[in-house]
């Protein structure tokens, strides 16, 4: 009897590290990359774009990591549903849900997906580096989510503040 194949997990962290806490998503991806988990791929980018569908479709589980302006600290982990797209004024943004919808439309399948919303506090300055509170939220997320990544079992989770 052969062992079950480990799920192929992708962590996609996005945001602008040059805008303070907007860099939470990429920072999370970098921390996951450093964990060197064998079945987990971690990538960072400024924003999601259409060709990310090519990457997403090759995985069983995808965790999107982004900073959030409001919401619970230190983070919220929720199941992500596919979306139809919606209107846009420029080509500089694509929501994670729309990316999932695009992936299914293009390839006939979409992976199980989750959204990690990391609470940030400062976004207005052109400055690299997270605020202390955001840094603490990042550490909490890495500690809580990191050990479960390999399994792909990322049920919705909202830690007590």
């Amino acid at each position, binding site marked *: 009897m052969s062992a079950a194949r480990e799920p192929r997990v992708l962590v996609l962290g996005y945001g602008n590290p040059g805008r303070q806490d907007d860099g939470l998503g990429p920072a999370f991806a970098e921390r996951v990359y450093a964990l060197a988990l064998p079945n987990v791929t971690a990538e960072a980018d400024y924003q999601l774009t*259409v*060709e990310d569908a090519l990457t997403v479709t090759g995985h069983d589980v995808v965790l999107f990591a982004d900073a959030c302006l409001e919401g619970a600290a230190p983070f919220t982990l929720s199941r992500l549903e596919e979306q139809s797209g919606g209107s846009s004024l420029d080509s*500089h943004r694509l929501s994670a849900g729309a990316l999932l919808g*695009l992936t299914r439309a293009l390839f006939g399948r979409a992976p199980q997906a989750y959204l990690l919303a990391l609470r940030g506090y400062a976004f207005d300055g*052109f400055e690299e580096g997270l605020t202390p509170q955001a840094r603490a939220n990042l550490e909490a997320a890495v500690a809580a989510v990191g050990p479960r990544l390999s399994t792909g079992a990322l049920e919705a989770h909202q830690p007590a503040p």
Partner: protein
Amino acid sequence: MSGQTRTVTIEPVTRVEGHGKVTILLDGQGQVSQARLHIVEFRGFERFIQGRPYWEVPVLVQRLCGICPVSHHLAAAKAMDLIVGAERLTPTAEKIRRLMHAGQVFQSHALHFFHLASPDLLFGFDADPAVRNIVGVARQHPELARQGVLMRKFGQEIILATAGKKIHGTGAVPGGVNKNLSPAERDAFLSQIDQMLLWSRSALQLARDYTEAHLDELAAFGSFGSNHVALVRADGAMDLYHGGLRAIGPDGATLFDHVDYQAYFHYIAEEVKPWSYMKFPFISSLGPESGWYRVGPLARVNACDFIPTPEAEQARQAFKAASGGRPNNLTMAYHWARMIELLYAAETIRDLLHDPDLQGHDLLVQGERRDEAVGLIEAPRGTLFHHYRVDRNDQVTLANLIVSTTHNNTPMNRAVTDVARRFLGGATVTEGLLNRIEVAIRAYDPCLSCATHALGQMPLAVELRDAAGNLLDRRVSS
């Protein structure tokens, strides 16, 4: 009520900073008196650069935008070339940069066409927004969507090979580049280029067919005569990487030509308006009232004498013929012009890949140091200025950037005003009005912000308020 106004507000709060908002001012009779497109341009970035060593700038400026970092990378590198006295790059360095730039234009135009333009062109302005988007295109036109994704990926791979990274590339350095293109990289791109050319032709045909089939409708949709500003080569050819500045009027008359952009401030001035964070550039000699201009694909195709690749030139001639040999002033013709440039970029990539200079090893030059320089490039969205001063300690003391969307500020306001006048009636904000304002703005391919992307964004909202500020109607886009 005479003389009083009501206000319609369209507010896509898309990011922490950098969202756009449209305010439509109505007179007492309910007619549109003016429409204002507010774009919260990036602020403070120049100060972020000041004090940094000049050699860091071509990398730092890529923080501005995740879609067009290469344009900022190259504009800054061109300025820093002059700072280090590199008046003329080696053939390998210049061609590597041109390949990087062509890859950038290719991926950006392909992304715009697939992501923003094709839903409007394929489904129509009144289609359900739940369908009129990229996922809708992928569901109903999967082959076109697949092409869009793979074209964008191809351009990104060109950037990766020439800049070292897809984001925060380091390939262009003051005085040249830090790597050439290996034979293996070249061969990988050559194996795909024919497919890219084929898909580019198809996209161009779609944009052309749409425009020609809807000429009457589009002539009455946010269209108006304007000046056009673009770089051109010394012989008048389109050149997106380097050249002199040319300005033409609405009828094609030359306003200035082959201007050395080191002295751009003698020809271009900027007006400040109290209601907008973004400035309003204009041709100095004409003044702000009549000196405003368009930049980007429409301006470039209008302004050049010819395109130096055969298929794109053939397409330019057809484009020119559609407007009787005069400049095309249809806002929606941006899409057609953009696809002509897509094909031009593909042809340019093909030609460069066959040039053995790309495998050269002479990558850097230096000369007599300067303390001030301007770098200019035709970014996908239009002309991009980077102006710097550097002190004796190699630190930047002044940085001034004028981005494409700023150049197009007045034309976008004009387009929105025109659309609002035609499609707003009564005290109700209709879905049709909202759709059409979006369509007009999208044609310019604006970069509404080069800022942040955090969750917590509000969708596009339209508010109708009376003269006293009372909310009459509100519509939120889906």
